[in-house]
C-alpha cells in the first residue's frame, strides 16, 4: 500500500445504488458457474422499483427517496408505498448447468 493508492484517498462520491447494480448485474465478467442464477434485467428492476414494497425508512436507508419529489406519491403525506410487486415479479429461475 503506497500513499498514492487512489482507493485509499478517494471516496465513492456521488455513486448510488443504481451505479452499483448496473455494474454487478450488467457488467463484470460472465463465466459459467455450476449453478446459474438468472438475475433481473436492469430495466425490469426499474419497473419493480416503482412499485417497490418497502417501508419508507428502509428505502431511504438505501438512498432511494425519489417519491419525495413526486407529487403524486408524496401529496398524501408519508403513506407507505403500495404493493404490487408480487403480481408483476418474474419467478426466480435457478438452473443447474450441466458440467
Amino acid at each position: 500500500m503506497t500513499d498514492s493508492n487512489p482507493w485509499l484517498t478517494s471516496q465513492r462520491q456521488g455513486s448510488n445504488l443504481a451505479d452499483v447494480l448496473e455494474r454487478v448485474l450488467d457488467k463484470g465478467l460472465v463465466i459459467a458457474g455450476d449453478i446459474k442464477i438468472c438475475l433481473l434485467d436492469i430495466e425490469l428492476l426499474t419497473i419493480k422499483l416503482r412499485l417497490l414494497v418497502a417501508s419508507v425508512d428502509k428505502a431511504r436507508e438505501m438512498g432511494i427517496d425519489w417519491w419525495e419529489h413526486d407529487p403524486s406519491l408524496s401529496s398524501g403525506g408519508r403513506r407507505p408505498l403500495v404493493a404490487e410487486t408480487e403480481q408483476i415479479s418474474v419467478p426466480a429461475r435457478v438452473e443447474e448447468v450441466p458440467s
Partner: protein
Amino acid sequence: MTAPRYAYAVGRVLDPADLAGLVGIDGAEVCQVAHRELAAVVSAAPPDEAALGARLERLDELAVVAEAHHSVVAAVAARTVVVPLRLGTIYRDEDRVRELLRERYEGFEALLARLAGTVEVGVKLYAQDRSPAPAAPGASGRAYLLQLSQRHRRREQEWQEAAAAVERVDTALGAYALDSSRHRPQPAQLSGAAGENVLNAAYLVPAGRLAEFGELAERLALGEPLLRIEVTGPWAPYSFTEPDRGDRT
C-alpha cells in the same frame, strides 16, 4: 471440500493477511483459491441457491447482496489487479474453481495484464430542463397552445445542443482514457437525480492519473452550461472485462 463457493473476482494471489476480516454475502468469510499466480476470491455460497434466486427478486435483498459482492470486489481491487465477476457466480466446490482458473488461465492472464494499474471512473452527464413550464390555461386557450408549441421548440433545440455537448465531453474524456464503455442512462426514478441522464459512461484510466482525469471531467463540464456532471469512482474495472476489448484500444 464439497461446499459450494461463491466467486467475486479473479486476480493475483494475495497475502492472506489482506483478506483477514473481509466478509462477503451473508457475512461469509472471504478466502482465495489459487492456481499458479491466479487467485479466485471466494466465500461459502448461501446454502440454498433457489432461495438466493428468490431473494434477488426482491430489491431490498438484492441491494444487500449487491453491496456485499461489490464491497469484496472493491476491497480486493484496492490490493491487486482483479477481473470482477458478475453477481451470482457459484461453483460446486473449490476444486471446480481451481479447474476454472486452469481452463481459462491464458484468458485471465491477458485480461489482468491489460487491467493492471488501471481504475474505472464513472461519468454521468445530466441535461437540465431550462424551459419554463407554460402558464396554466387561462382566458385564452390559443395563447396557451402557442406557449406550449414554443416551449416544445425550445426543448428540441436544447436537446440538440445538449447532445452536441455530450459528444464533446465524451470525445475529450475518451481521448484521455485507455478505454471507454457506455452504460444505459439511468432513469431518474432509479437514481433520484435531477435532470435527464444523457450520458452514463465508464472510462478506464491509469490509477496514477485518477485525480487528473476527475479534474479534466469537471473542467469540461463547467464549459457546458446545459450539462451537469457526476463523477464516481474509483471502481474495479467492471465495465472492461470483455475478453476481446483489448482489440479496440
